[in-house]
């Protein structure tokens, strides 16, 4: 059973799982019907915030639950309070239902590296054991921490269930529609003056592959998932060839509000701190324990995403410069 299939990531995960011959039936669950084609996936309209979900699990004899229903954007969920309800209450109900269902043998939770927060006291790379250093957490970051707390509680209460938590870096790719892809899609990209965040990305195909990998194998534990290498925010924007406005940090929240009102991108305060200080995670355990090798590095994933955008203004200046260089070298 896959939750959150009305959104793109969930739908693609469900489709990918349905294509796997070793997996029998794939059940997609969400409140609203999915916009995307689901293929062999059977869609069940149910709300994970409602105890009815327990009946669905029992009636269908679900043995594996893949929870991708954590919403990152308050806009798409209809506001911050609604987003929090879907994320936190939804996870609570889902886990409560799983706990009562003896047939459930595996739980895969799509979490995010936002659980580590972002701040000036952060180590260069977070490993799975590290706790967040930044105190003020809001939005998705706070939700993700709470969701993981409930998942840990569930793992304690049902030690027979194989629980895999995947802390994924920001998904990026031509098909992903997230605050981060919207942000890079803006014609002029605002950044925080005087800071340059380190970013890591995970290509959308790798993200889906990782969820399939976790579903098909017995890999209990928490794992960081990210593409190799790091891009600095200014470097990423330069690769896009887009002009930058560097705004002082005290204007960041008002800028975010303007951007949100213009429906260009949806920023929450934790994304602003992320774009200020950045965050990188250690993916050693992804290779050694989880046994997963992402196909794209951070830079390659970003390049793939860039190819789907129209090149920006400064990219053309660079083009001219490289021509001049070619001429000088003969």
């Amino acid at each position: 059973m896959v939750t959150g299939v009305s959104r793109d990531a969930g739908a693609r995960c469900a489709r990918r799982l349905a294509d796997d011959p070793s997996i029998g039936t794939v059940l997609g669950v969400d409140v609203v019907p999915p916009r995307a084609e689901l293929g062999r996936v059977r869609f069940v309209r149910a709300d994970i915030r409602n105890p009815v979900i327990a009946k669905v699990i029992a009636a269908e004899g679900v043995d594996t639950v893949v929870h991708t229903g954590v919403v990152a954007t308050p806009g798409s969920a209809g506001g911050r309070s609604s987003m929090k309800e879907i994320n936190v209450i939804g996870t609570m109900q889902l886990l409560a239902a799983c706990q009562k269902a003896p047939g459930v043998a595996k739980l895969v939770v799509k979490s995010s590296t936002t659980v580590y927060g972002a701040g000036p006291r952060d180590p260069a790379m977070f490993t799975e054991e590290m706790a967040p250093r930044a105190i003020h957490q809001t939005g998705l970051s706070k939700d993700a921490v709470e969701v993981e707390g409930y998942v840990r509680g569930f793992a304690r209460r049902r030690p027979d269930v194989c629980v895999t938590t995947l802390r994924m870096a920001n998904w990026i790719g031509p098909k992903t529609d997230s605050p981060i892809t919207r942000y890079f899609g803006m014609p002029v990209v605002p950044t925080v003056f005087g800071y340059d965040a380190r970013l890591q990305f995970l290509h959308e195909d790798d993200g889906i592959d990782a969820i399939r990998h976790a579903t098909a194998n017995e890999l209990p534990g928490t794992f960081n998932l990210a593409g190799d290498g790091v891009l600095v925010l200014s470097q990423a924007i330069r690769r896009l060839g887009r002009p930058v406005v560097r705004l002082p940090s005290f204007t960041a929240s008002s800028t975010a509000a303007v951007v949100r009102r213009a429906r260009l991108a949806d920023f929450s305060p934790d994304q602003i701190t992320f774009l200020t200080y950045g965050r990188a995670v250690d993916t050693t355990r992804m290779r050694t324990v989880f046994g997963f090798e992402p196909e794209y590095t951070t830079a390659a994933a970003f390049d793939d995403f860039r190819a789907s955008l129209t090149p920006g203004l400064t990219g053309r200046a660079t083009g001219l410069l490289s021509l001049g260089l070619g001429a000088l070298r003969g």
Partner: protein
Amino acid sequence: MADADIIPIGSGGRPGRGNRRTTPSAAARALAGPAAKPPKKPKKKPTVADEPVTELPVTELPAENFAEPAAGEVRGEQESDTSDARTTDRPADVGGFDFVGLERAVRELFGAEGERRVAEWLAFLRRRLSGGYEVDEFGYDSDLTDQVLLPLLRPLAEKWFRVEVRGVENIPDTGSALIVANHSGTMPLDGLITQLIVADHTGRPLRTLAADLVFRTPFVGELARKGGATLAGNDDAERLLRQGNLVGVWPEGFKGLGKPFAERYKLQRFGRGGFVSAAMRTGVPIVPCSIVGAEEIYPLVGNLASLARLVGVPYIPVTPFFPLLGPLGMVPLPSKWLIEFGEPIRTDDFPDGAADDPMLVFNVTDQVRETIQQTLYTLLVQRRSVFF
């Protein structure tokens, strides 16, 4: 009727029934042959205006119509393949500039050697503009550091402070080492100069460990990360050492940096000895480094403590010149610097778990501290005067 727009029908005079403004239909192109080129672009505006227009028709047409690809199609493909197409060689006239003339002009102005330098500089500029450089996981930007940051520091070290270096052979050529030095001078210039000295004498970058205040401060934090600094903490230190880097640490921290001028060259407490446990866990040698001269660049005679608390910094210095002369007071005094690297202290022959033995860690910390202190006294005796 006089102001009626003329709406062109067809492809603007070229044969065929193409209904698009710039590209005729596939049938029309087959008729016209390969000579059907898109209209010449205006000067100085390469590939901007007509790019989306040329791309669109190409994607619309079914593939089997391209028996004979027209110029427009080739261009469209090049443009959609963004950066690669830009960086690979294209005919020199595409940009609209006369690049052959540019080459000749540069050669006449700067000579053959100068031309190479201009080309290198242009290549650097292109890398910076297009983002085609590599940054490691700590945010260290070797390209920027080697090309801009260190060259900016070099005159300061060589001409202003006239740094004299001893014992460079104590820094290992390969493998990691932890360079531990005394901190002084109100502003962490000694860290920057040491980084330059190590880079120039060993050809290896020195990765420094800095306080979190650095990363909280705008610009400073950004430049520090790009210059190879990371947060002073066991996680980052051990990670850097495991990767085989030269790591520089100033364990006195702000206590050493902001001590009054009267206490110059008296080492402060060496923190909690975290650097020793990091070195022990990774088994890398500790190279003590004594820096003489940095104490005199900004003689700290006072501290605006309450203002500092208000701003949230450890101290706001008062030097004989600083608030008095304004920005001019921020020019460091040209003291003569001596930097000596001492003999490495091995940490790999301690038993397992030694890093968790506080007594042992404190002993090694004291040993390092004593070595640096003694070397400082020796160097001070050797120095003839503060400024020469």
